[in-house]
């Protein structure tokens, strides 16, 4: 396998402005892919697009609210106008917006978590499906929270359970088009979105906080750098046609 195994490929990465999404976009670009990125605001994705161009690849960055079908449809049209088709779709946009027990939850925040994590993933799939080439890959960033219930974050649990199920349903539907659909379970990742760190101003601050310290969820877990996700997604995206589909690839360190 050369280090430009994705040369000539087009990849879409949602939530590509920072953290896991940024790492994924840079790893795919580093392997030769051109990238279309989106997130809700432009500043961060514009900066990542510049990093991608510095690697010699093309980049298209547009602001999109993935929960809004019309915006997603427009985004898909803009991407296919620019690139004609896509090969890899990484549904990474997500996060937990309502944290706390159901009994005191804000229904609007609860709904928003499902909107972004679940409907966002569905919208992107629906909008791009006709334009994914044979041999293409759909990779959904889900979560161990989609496999195992906990108290205090039901919206995120439910949304990720739904996204995990969607991955499997879609795999069963489109295998005969040669498109493989898998999900990624990141485990604990140091990003500025996590709710279990007291200083989440940067990836480095979260890593530093848990250096040599007991991580949340299970003592065996490890807080990792988002680049490890970039590496794993590159691996999955580089598999040959007819590779795994309907499966989960996990960096978690606790059984589910």
């Amino acid at each position, binding site marked *: 396998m050369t280090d430009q195994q994705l040369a000539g490929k087009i990849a879409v990465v949602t939530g590509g402005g920072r953290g896991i999404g940024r790492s994924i976009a840079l790893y795919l670009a580093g392997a030769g892919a051109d990238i279309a990125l989106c997130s809700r605001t432009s500043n961060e994705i514009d900066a990542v697009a510049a990093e991608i161009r510095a690697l010699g690849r093309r980049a298209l960055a547009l602001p999109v609210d993935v929960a809004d*079908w019309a915006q997603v449809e427009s985004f898909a049209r803009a991407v296919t106008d620019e690139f004609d088709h896509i090969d890899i779709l990484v549904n990474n946009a997500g996060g937990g917006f309502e944290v706390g*027990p*159901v*009994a005191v*939850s804000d*229904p609007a925040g*609860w*709904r928003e978590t*499902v909107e972004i994590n*679940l*409907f966002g993933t*569905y*919208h992107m*799939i*629906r909008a791009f*499906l*006709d334009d994914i080439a044979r041999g293409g890959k759909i990779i959904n960033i889900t979560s161990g929270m*989609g496999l195992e*219930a*906990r*108290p*205090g*974050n*039901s*919206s995120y*649990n*439910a*949304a990720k*359970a*739904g*996204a*995990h*199920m*969607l991955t*499997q*349903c*879609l*795999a*069963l*539907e*489109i295998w005969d088009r040669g498109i493989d659909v898998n999900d990624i379970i990141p485990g604990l990742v140091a990003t500025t979105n996590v709710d279990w760190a007291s200083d989440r101003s940067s990836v480095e601050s979260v890593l530093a906080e848990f250096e040599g310290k007991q991580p949340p969820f299970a003592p065996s877990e490890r807080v990792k750098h988002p680049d490890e996700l970039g590496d794993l997604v590159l691996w999955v995206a580089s598999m040959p046609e007819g590779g795994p589909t*309907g499966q989960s690839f996990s960096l978690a360190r606790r059984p589910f």
Partner: protein
Amino acid sequence: MSELSGQVALVTGGGRGIGRSIAIAFARAGADLAVCSRTQSELDEVAEKVQAEGANCLTGIVDVTDRAAVERFRDDLIQRYERVDILVNNAGGGLERGVVAESDPDRWRRTVEVNLFGTYLFSRALLEHIPDGGKIINVSSGMGLKAANQSSAYNVAKAGVHMFTECLANELWPRGIDVNNLIPGPVATSTFNRDAPGQRTPTEEIITKFADEPPPQFPKFERVKHPDEVGELALYMATRPRGGPTGQTFSLARRPL
């Protein structure tokens, strides 16, 4: 048959099919009922059956995805009964069928909203009025545990409901409220029969239709059952003692899930 006497039960989507059977079974066991759905004529018929068992019945037209409507019905219920002991989140169904590639995004979204948001909104709205010893029963599905290939909206919605039940169980056990999933398996209802809007094929006709074999998406050893069997299971779940199962699944399916 008075195991639920003195108790108040709310059944969403209780106008027909599984919800209706659950409401009547609870009434027979002595509970007072609150039933909501979207069709007045169906609610009237269920209310008659419930009252014929000697129980009270509060009804309301509620779109379970409409938070304000859910909260208004909650207010009516509390004004009438002061509390609710058993919440059955049954409203649901598969509105969007077919492959993702041809799906209608609005109907796909709506399927998830009705099944998942409906369950969440009712739980959220009623929670503070459920006493120690209360029960929440969420109607899940084998489709929420195993993917199929032409029903992703429903698969996804029920996967979410199933997970939500477990989360809620994890949160409410210190309050003595037990939360479990009920998996009916295939049931002879209008929804299952894919009746057109407004059409209501009689239960017995659906049972006869599938007497020899269930529809092709099920293995041959599955059985399309009468909704009253689901009512019996819901009653069993509702009458477990405090500190009984929670975060568990009770299923009438006839295939491993």
